[in-house]
């Protein structure tokens, strides 16, 4: 067992999975199988940063964000940490300047944050009694260096200053937690039906508060669209991220993560959609108008997905008052209406609506029966095909 764990971690028994490895710890929702928690842990145990954790978690959850459980995770070195929280979990970081609370509720993907000068971090589920209870009594904590335990809370004394002030805290000679099935009570296996169906909401969707990613109350909000989150390439994509409207810079700018080569990617992607390189966890903001993908016509044209796209035999963008004109995609075929279909992009989400075309538009999605695209917009997933009849199709290809 490793003995290089430089900081002191305590855990309180409970129904979730507590993970600890060199440089990080996490609390993962107890409804996921223990094997999943162990798989994530074993990948982290071999070293990695927060993005590795997020990637490990999405990878073991079928590569789909939809299936990612709630969690709170903290990676820290010398008092400065990188936090991610999703679902009904909260991380409270205590420092000399007070408490910082990171919550995962109301966030479509996860809230992410970098913190400096953390003394103590407490990872816990958001429960009325737990939130009110504050830190557990000292006697309730058990030491943990590295491993997976059934926990309700994790408390990590991160800061070195505290360690000096309280030598006892840093000198906890924790017994390594065993990983064997004998010593870890198995939670009840998660029934398949407990996995959110594709049409279902992702995590909490009611009364979405402001989050790290900004207000999530746009029409693209999770759970509102009739279409589900689709895993389009075995990696990840999420729906429902709204453009930020305030706070982090320009209105309409978009939260994104960068790959090692600097390409812009949706938050939560583990590999770059442009070059396939790993995507770091570093959050950034990109200006409005950056293409988030593209649409391809069966006749050969392709148009980048940015703003609004008018598709038709002789498409026309009408009566625009602002600075940005919609894109036009001309499909010169007799059965297609002059302006037939409108595609619009909001944040990382793509929508389509038929604009009263004569012959209609049909959505082909996986094995589902074709359905007519209404004049009220519907949200598209990567891999969807829009059929305009007589072999004229639009595809939203999987991103490399």
């Amino acid at each position, binding site marked *: 067992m490793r003995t290089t764990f430089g900081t002191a971690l305590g855990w309180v028994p409970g129904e979730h999975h507590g993970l600890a490895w060199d440089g990080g710890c996490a609390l993962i929702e107890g409804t996921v199988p223990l094997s999943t928690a162990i798989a994530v842990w074993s990948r982290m145990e071999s070293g990695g940063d927060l993005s590795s954790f997020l990637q490990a978690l999405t990878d073991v959850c079928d590569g789909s964000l939809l299936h990612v459980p709630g969690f709170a995770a903290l990676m820290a070195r010398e008092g400065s940490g990188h936090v991610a929280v999703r679902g009904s979990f909260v991380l409270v970081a205590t420092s000399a300047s007070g408490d910082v609370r990171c919550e995962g509720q109301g966030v479509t993907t996860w809230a992410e944050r970098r913190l400096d000068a953390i003394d103590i971090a407490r990872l816990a589920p958001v429960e009325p009694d737990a939130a009110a209870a504050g830190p557990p009594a000292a006697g309730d904590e058990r030491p943990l260096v590295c491993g997976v335990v059934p926990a309700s809370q994790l408390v990590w004394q991160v800061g070195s200053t505290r360690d000096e002030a309280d030598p006892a805290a840093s000198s906890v000679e924790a017994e390594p937690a065993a990983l064997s099935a004998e010593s870890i009570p198995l939670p009840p296996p998660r029934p398949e039906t407990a996995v959110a169906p594709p049409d279902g909401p992702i995590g909490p969707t009611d009364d979405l508060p402001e989050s790290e990613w900004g207000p999530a109350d746009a029409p693209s909000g999770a759970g509102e669209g009739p279409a589900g989150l689709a895993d389009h390439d075995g990696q990840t994509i999420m729906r429902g991220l709204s453009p930020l409207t305030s706070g982090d810079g320009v209105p309409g700018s978009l939260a994104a993560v960068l790959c090692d080569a600097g390409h812009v990617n949706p938050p939560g992607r583990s590999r770059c959609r442009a070059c396939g390189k790993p995507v770091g966890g570093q959050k950034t903001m990109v200006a409005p108008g950056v293409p988030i993908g593209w649409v391809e016509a069966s*006749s*050969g*044209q*392709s*148009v*980048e997905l940015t703003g609004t796209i008018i598709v038709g035999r*002789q*498409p*026309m*963008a*009408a*009566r*625009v*008052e602002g*600075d*940005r*004109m*919609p*894109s*036009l995609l*001309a499909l010169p075929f007799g059965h297609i209406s002059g302006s037939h279909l409108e595609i619009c992009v909001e944040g990382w989400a793509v929508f389509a609506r038929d604009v009263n075309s004569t012959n209609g538009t049909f959505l082909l999605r996986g094995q589902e029966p074709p359905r007519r695209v209404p004049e009220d917009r519907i949200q598209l997933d990567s891999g969807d095909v829009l059929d305009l009849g007589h072999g004229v199709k639009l595809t939203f290809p999987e991103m490399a």
Partner: protein
Amino acid sequence: MTRTVPDTEDPTAGVRFTVRWGSMTHRGYVRTRNEDAFLADPPVFLVADGMGGHDAGDAASSITVEECRAFTGSRWVDVDGLHAAVASADERIRHVPSSSEARPGTTLTGIGLSQQGGTPCWLVFNVGDSRTYRFTERGLEQISVDHSRVQELIDAGELPSDADVPFGRNVITRALGMGAQRPPTLDKWLLVAVPGDRMLLCSDGLTDVVPDDLISQALLRAADPETAAGQLVALALEAGGRDNITAVVVDALDVRGYGPASSAAESTPATTLIGGGQ
């Protein structure tokens, strides 16, 4: 007239958008001045209908033409450039001295030769009640939407779209130089240009007195855009010529994009423009 605009560094160099145009303006039989002005100088074509009495109306429309000459020498018209031209014109018109009660102002409608992703497009713009139409084999289609009291009532559902209202037609709700909003919001349309497209820009001196079907007939019969413009103005004069009348007709001849958006892509490092007289 043939004009070649070489632009070897331009990524849109392979895009071909050849137009032919003609224009006509007339004071009419009633007004003492012609306050209409127009510009037919690729990549921009426009009609401005000035108002304000004495020479203020002339000044307003002429200033607008001058500001839009900023595009001369460019291959394409862009939205930012249009907004800048409108803002400059609006500011200058506000400084035009006027001896009458009415403040000077002008309408503005027109088209810019534009391209999007290598596809040639018409960028139509409008403030006021001058109009831009597209005439194709499918007929005459009004692209611009008037900023007038009548149109506002139609938009609000209080009048049918084909309402023939004997009053209030000349009350416009948006103009350069006289609005509360500075500069006025420019409405814009973007249309994929197709060979054979015939665009008509005109002042209300034409459309107030010549019905659409007569306009269509004139556009259909005259092969040459200059002839078409002349015949349209003649029709308005026959109908009384109560107002200034201006018509600019622009035909798309050779229209080719590049890249995957255009199957007929062809590499031509220049745009050839053949023009009629102004």
